């Protein structure tokens, strides 16, 4: 085992639960406990707990906090009231993406908490300092543990453990509650496509909160969930994962994230470059595909038209634990991006027919309609 891997405070708890631990983004994390399929199903049907303490937390404070965040992110931070949560992007100087993130407004114009990807946390912090417009920016990642509680019974479980008021919270808001005397921030957000919350809890209370949730949720069927199911759950929901669907060369519009880019509302880093790609007409789009024959699409596999022209590439793929279908997320040339369009995926030299399908790939808790 590499010596320099970081561990969350829950490491020995995971090991005691029988988790298989792996390296992920410089962290020693549980990839699965009893099995990916069981864990995946528990989140779709009941409730699961995820240790996401490896995620980065960055605090932005002071009278220049709003101005700084408006410049650094693509979404309109001025819209946020205290208690709002907002999905957003950090553009880089070339018009690509440094990271995707959540902005939690603690006090408008004065205090914001940002949650960023573990793998990008140090890079993000340096990037923010470089483009800071006078805010007080601190990396609070060491201070916070984070537990995601996700699934149809997640709100019931969180209400039991923290406060009945959790049930009244609306999607994309956050609220602070007490747990064993400490402030914990509960956000009604998630990365599974199911209802649920993500809880920021001080490091020293993280193990206790985890154990309390497992204990109080026993009759609800709560299970600890590893990174394996975290990935299949977000893939079924077609949520982007940095390093796969998006990276430092991605355009937000091509990635289907235009809904968090607000060029009319404000100026931000690389705005002209990002918007220019859209105005020139998008050359490629991120779509959901499903294989029409045997095989599983995997990241990096090439898509070809029936004329054998290369038209795209898979960014994430798996067998859907919910439906059993072979599903993938892929960038594809815009003229092949319409629903129902067919082409081939090159699976280790074999051509397998695939089709553009609606997403989310399966019925999930947050599906519209």
């Amino acid at each position: 085992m590499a010596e320099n891997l970081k561990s969350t405070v829950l490491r020995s708890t995971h090991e005691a639960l029988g988790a298989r631990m792996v390296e992920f983004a410089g962290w020693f994390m549980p990839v699965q406990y009893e099995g990916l399929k069981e864990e995946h199903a528990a989140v779709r049907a009941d409730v699961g707990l995820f240790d996401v303490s490896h995620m980065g937390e960055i605090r932005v404070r002071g009278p220049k906090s709003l101005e700084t965040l408006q410049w650094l992110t693509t979404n309109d931070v001025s819209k946020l009231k205290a208690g709002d949560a907002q999905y957003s992007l950090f553009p880089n100087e070339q018009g690509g993406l440094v990271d995707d993130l959540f902005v939690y407004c603690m006090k408008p114009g004065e205090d914001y908490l940002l949650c960023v990807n573990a793998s990008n946390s140090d890079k993000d912090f340096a990037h923010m300092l470089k483009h800071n417009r006078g805010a007080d920016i601190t990396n609070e990642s060491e201070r916070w543990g984070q537990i995601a509680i996700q699934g149809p019974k997640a709100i019931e479980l969180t209400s039991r453990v923290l406060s009945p008021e959790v049930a009244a919270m609306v999607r994309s808001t956050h609220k602070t509650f007490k747990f064993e005397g400490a402030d914990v921030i509960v956000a009604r957000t998630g990365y599974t496509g199911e209802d649920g919350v993500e809880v920021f809890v001080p490091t020293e209370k993280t193990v206790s909160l985890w154990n309390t949730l497992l204990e109080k949720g026993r009759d609800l069927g709560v299970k600890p969930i590893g990174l394996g199911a975290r990935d299949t759950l977000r893939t079924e929901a077609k949520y982007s994962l940095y390093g796969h669907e998006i990276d430092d060369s991605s355009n937000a519009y091509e990635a289907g994230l235009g809904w968090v880019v607000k060029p009319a509302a404000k100026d931000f880093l690389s705005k002209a470059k990002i918007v220019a790609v859209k105005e020139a007409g998008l050359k490629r789009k991120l779509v959901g595909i499903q294989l029409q024959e045997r095989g599983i699409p995997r990241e990096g596999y090439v898509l070809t038209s029936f004329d054998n022209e290369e038209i795209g590439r898979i960014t994430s793929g798996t067998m859907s634990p919910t439906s059993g279908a072979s599903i993938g997320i892929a960038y594809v040339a815009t003229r092949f991006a319409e629903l129902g369009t067919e082409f081939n995926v090159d699976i280790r030299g074999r051509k397998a027919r695939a089709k553009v399908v609606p997403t989310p790939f399966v019925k999930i808790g947050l599906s519209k309609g």
Partner: protein
Amino acid sequence: MSYALPEDFYYTKDHEWAQVDENIVTIGVTEFAQEQLGEVVYVELPEEGQKVNQGESFGVVESVKAASDLYAPVSGTVIEVNTALMEDPGSLNDDPMNDGWLIRIEMDSEKELANLVRAPEYRKMITEKKA
């Protein structure tokens, strides 16, 4: 965790096993391999009559998470394929040393067996890997 590793089998560093019966070799993956793979959902195997070469990929086993190549312990010609695995890939997890076997081949040369390891050495290899 201890694994059932028959003393009369041969093993590869890529975690395949080979059971040799004169010039007929049955090939599968070890208990350790199935554990590392996680739940197997798809298996791609060669067809009867196809040639396989020692150390080269002859198929793929996929879990939900990832695709992993299968490497031939010895060279030869495929004479039988465990087609039941196509219908029920999970049996590779349940019983990798028996019902989860992959292919049976007619071995070209038993000299190649010298490149494989036996149970005690393989056990040592996976113990070190786990530590």
